[in-house]
C-alpha cells in the first residue's frame, strides 16, 4: 500500500471529525456527571470495582457479550439477535480491521483519527498489498454482514410481525433522523469503497461492484462526493446520537460495570436512574410484554415511553405513567438491557409531595407482641404464620394453611389472628418508603418477641418485603409454597396424587419475578395432580391485573388484563388454576370459567 496524497488529508473528513468530537465530548461529560451524581458510598464501590481484576474481567466479558454479540437477544429471538449483532459486531470489526490495516501498511499515519475509517480513499494498491488480501476480504465480509442486518432492520421497521414483534416503538423525530442516517452509513460506505476499489483494491464485494459501475460510469468524478456523503452520514448520526435512542450504545458500556458493582437506583432522576434511561434502546420489546398493553390505549404507558418522557422532562406524563404501572416487572424480565421499569417508577412516586403523611408510631403493638409470647408458651423456635391483609380477605387460604400445618405436626402459631399490621410493601410500592419503615419496625418487634425461628407467609407481597427489608437475624422467612414443598419432600405431608386432575400454576409477579421462586411451587402442585404449563410462564408469566402496584388503574381497566391472563393460563385446558398469592386468587376468581385455588387449598384437599 502506498499513500495517494502526501498530506494524508482531504476536506471530506471534516464532518466525520466534527461528529466524532461532539459525540465523544458529550459522552465523556455525561459519564462524569452520572458518576458524580452517585451517592458517595456507591461511587466509591463502583470505582473500586474498576480496578479489581475479578470485576474487570466480568465487565469486559459482559460488555462483549451484551453490547456486541447481543447474547440475550439471540436467546429470545434469533432474527432480532442476528440483526443487532450483525450491525454492532460487524461495525466493531470494521473499525478494528481499519486500524489493523493502518498499523500494518502505514504505521506513520496511526495518529490520524480518521485514517482507519477512510483508509481506502487515501491509499493505492501495490504489489505488497497481496499480503493484506485477507484483511480486505474480512472488510468486505463484515460489510456484507452489516448490510444484511440493515436489510432486516428496514423490513422490521415496516413489518415488525415478520421478526416476531407485534408492536414496535413509535419513533420520535430525532430517532428517525438517527435511524435513517444509520441506515445510510453502510450502503454509502459500500458505494464509496466500490468507486475507489480499482485504486485501493478490494475484495469480493467492492471489486465486482467497481467493475459494474465502471461499465456505465465513465470517470471517477463521483467517488469524492460519495466519500463526502459517507462522512456526512457519519457526522449526522454521531451529532444526533446523544438525543436519540442510540445513546444506549455508549450508555450500556457504563451501565454494565455499574450493575456488576451492585449500584441501585437511589434518586429518581440522577445517577444510576439517569444512566438506565439513557440505556433504553427503545426497541419496544416491553410494549408486547406489558400486561397493560391488552388495552391499546395503555401501550403508551410502557417503560419505553416512560424513559422517553424522562428524557424530555414531561412531568405530567411521567406522573401518569409511573402511577399506572402494575409493577409486575415483566418489562425488566424481557428487557435486553435490563432497564428496571418498576424501580424507576417507584423512585418517581417517592419524590411526590403530600400534604398529609401517615404516621404509625402511635400504634401500640405491645398487646400483639405479648399475645405471640403467650402463644409460644415460653418455648423458642417454631413457626410464626403471618397471614397478612390479603390472606385475611381470602380466609380459605388461611384455613388450608392452618390445616396443613396441623397435619404435618408443625408447632406453629399465628402472628395476626385478629388484628395485625400491614407488611409495608404496599406503601413501598406507592413510594412511601419512610412510612413503610415504621410498619417494618413495628412488625419486626412482634416477630422478635415471639422467639420463632421460621416466619411463614402465604402472600408473596408480604414475602418479598419480609425477605428484603426486614432485618430478622436467625429467623427464616419462607413462603408457604416453598415450606409445603419441603414438608412433602421430607415426608411430613402425605399428598395423594390425582392423575386425572390437570393443574396449571400461575406465577405471581412478586413470587416469581420478584423473588425468583418458580420451581418449588411447581413441584408441590405436581404432587397433587398433573402439572401443565400456561402459554407464558416462569419469568414471562402475565400479571393477574389485580396488582397493588398500580395506583390509578380502575377496576374496569383491569378487567381485560385479568381476562388476558386467564386466557394465557388456560391454553392447556387445565381443570383448575393454582396460584400462590391471595391477591391473584381474589382477582382471578371473579372472572375465571374454572375453579381457581391457592396452592395450600389444593394440597389440603389431597392430604
Amino acid at each position, binding site marked *: 500500500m502506498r499513500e495517494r496524497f502526501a498530506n494524508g488529508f482531504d476536506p471530506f473528513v471534516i464532518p466525520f471529525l466534527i461528529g466524532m468530537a461532539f459525540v465523544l465530548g458529550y459522552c465523556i461529560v455525561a459519564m462524569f456527571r452520572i458518576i458524580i451524581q452517585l451517592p458517595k458510598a456507591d461511587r466509591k464501590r463502583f470505582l473500586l470495582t474498576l480496578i479489581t481484576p475479578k470485576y474487570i474481567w466480568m465487565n469486559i466479558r459482559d460488555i462483549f457479550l451484551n453490547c456486541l454479540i447481543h447474547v440475550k437477544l439471540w436467546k429470545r429471538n434469533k432474527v432480532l439477535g442476528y440483526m443487532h449483532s450483525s450491525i454492532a459486531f460487524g461495525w466493531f470489526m470494521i473499525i478494528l480491521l481499519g486500524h489493523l490495516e493502518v498499523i500494518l501498511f502505514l504505521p506513520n499515519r496511526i495518529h490520524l483519527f480518521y485514517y482507519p475509517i477512510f483508509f481506502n480513499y487515501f491509499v493505492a494498491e501495490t504489489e505488497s498489498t497481496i499480503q493484506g488480501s485477507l484483511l480486505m476480504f474480512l472488510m468486505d465480509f463484515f460489510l456484507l454482514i452489516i448490510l444484511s442486518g440493515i436489510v432486516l432492520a428496514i423490513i422490521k421497521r415496516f413489518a415488525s410481525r415478520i421478526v416476531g414483534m407485534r408492536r414496535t416503538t413509535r419513533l420520535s423525530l430525532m430517532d428517525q433522523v438517527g435511524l435513517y442516517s444509520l441506515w445510510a452509513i453502510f450502503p454509502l460506505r459500500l458505494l464509496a469503497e466500490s468507486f475507489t476499489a480499482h485504486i485501493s483494491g478490494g475484495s469480493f464485494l467492492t471489486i465486482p461492484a467497481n467493475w459494474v459501475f465502471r461499465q456505465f460510469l465513465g470517470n471517477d468524478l463521483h467517488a469524492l462526493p460519495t466519500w463526502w456523503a459517507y462522512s456526512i452520514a457519519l457526522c449526522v448520526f454521531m451529532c444526533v446520537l446523544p438525543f436519540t435512542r442510540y445513546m444506549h450504545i455508549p450508555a450500556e458500556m457504563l451501565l454494565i460495570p455499574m450493575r456488576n458493582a451492585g449500584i441501585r437506583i437511589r434518586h429518581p432522576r440522577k445517577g444510576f436512574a439517569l444512566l438506565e434511561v439513557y440505556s433504553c434502546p427503545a426497541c419496544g420489546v416491553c410494549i408486547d410484554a406489558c400486561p397493560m398493553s391488552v388495552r391499546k390505549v395503555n401501550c403508551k404507558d410502557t417503560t419505553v415511553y416512560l424513559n422517553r418522557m424522562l428524557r424530555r422532562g414531561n412531568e405530567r406524563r411521567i406522573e401518569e405513567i409511573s402511577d399506572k404501572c402494575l409493577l409486575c416487572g415483566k418489562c425488566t424480565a424481557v428487557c435486553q438491557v435490563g432497564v428496571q421499569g418498576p424501580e424507576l417508577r417507584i423512585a418517581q412516586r417517592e419524590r411526590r409531595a403530600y*400534604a*398529609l403523611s401517615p404516621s404509625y408510631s402511635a400504634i401500640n403493638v405491645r398487646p400483639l407482641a405479648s399475645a405471640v409470647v403467650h402463644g409460644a408458651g415460653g418455648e423458642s423456635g417454631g413457626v410464626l404464620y403471618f397471614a397478612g391483609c390479603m390472606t385475611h380477605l381470602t380466609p380459605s387460604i388461611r384455613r388450608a394453611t392452618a390445616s396443613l400445618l396441623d397435619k404435618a405436626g408443625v408447632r406453629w402459631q399465628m402472628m395476626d389472628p385478629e388484628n395485625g399490621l400491614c407488611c409495608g410493601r404496599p406503601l413501598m410500592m*406507592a413510594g412511601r418508603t419512610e412510612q413503610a419503615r415504621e410498619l417494618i419496625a413495628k412488625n419486626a418487634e412482634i416477630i422478635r418477641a415471639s422467639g420463632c425461628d421460621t416466619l411463614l407467609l402465604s402472600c408473596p407481597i408480604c414475602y418479598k418485603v419480609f425477605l428484603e427489608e426486614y432485618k430478622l437475624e436467625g429467623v427464616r422467612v419462607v413462603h408457604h409454597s416453598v415450606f409445603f414443598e419441603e414438608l412433602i419432600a421430607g415426608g411430613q405431608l402425605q399428598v395423594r396424587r390425582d392423575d386425572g386432575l390437570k393443574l396449571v400454576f400461575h406465577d405471581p409477579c412478586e413470587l416469581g419475578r420478584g423473588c425468583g421462586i418458580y420451581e418449588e411451587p411447581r413441584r408441590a402442585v405436581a404432587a397433587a395432580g398433573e402439572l401443565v404449563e400456561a402459554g407464558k410462564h416462569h419469568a414471562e408469566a402475565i400479571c393477574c391485573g389485580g396488582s397493588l402496584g398500580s395506583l390509578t388503574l380502575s*377496576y*374496569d381497566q383491569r378487567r381485560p388484563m385479568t381476562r388476558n391472563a386467564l386466557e394465557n393460563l388456560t391454553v392447556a385446558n387445565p381443570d383448575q388454576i393454582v396460584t400462590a398469592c391471595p391477591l391473584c386468587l381474589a382477582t382471578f376468581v371473579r372472572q375465571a370459567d374454572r375453579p381457581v385455588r391457592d396452592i395450600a387449598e389444593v394440597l389440603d384437599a389431597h392430604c
Partner: protein
Amino acid sequence: MDFGFKLSPSSAVNLDTVDHARYDRLVQLVPDALTCIGCGSCSATCTAAPWSGMSVRKVLLGLQRGRDDEVDSMLSKCMLCGKCTMVCPRGINTRHLILTLCRLSRKGEVVR
C-alpha cells in the same frame, strides 16, 4: 357533682359553614368518589380500622361534613393495603382516592 351521666359536646354540623373545597377537588380528580354507596365494606375489612377507626366511607362522609381533623387522623393511619379496593362493590379505586386526598391541602390544592 356526679349525676352518673354527662352532657357530650354538641356534634351538630352546620353545613352552611362547611368548606367543601377539598371534597370538590377530590371529586374532580377521582370522580368515582361520587359512586360510593356507603355500604361500609371498606370499614369492615380495613387493616387500619382497629388502630384508628379508619374507613373510606367515613372519610368521604367526614369531608362533606367538614370533619377535617377526623378525616386527617383516619387517613394518617391508612396502610394502603388495598383490601378496601378489593371489596368495594362499586369498584372504586380507594387507594387512588386516599393517595389523591393525601396530596390535597385543606383548601383543596394539590401540593407540589
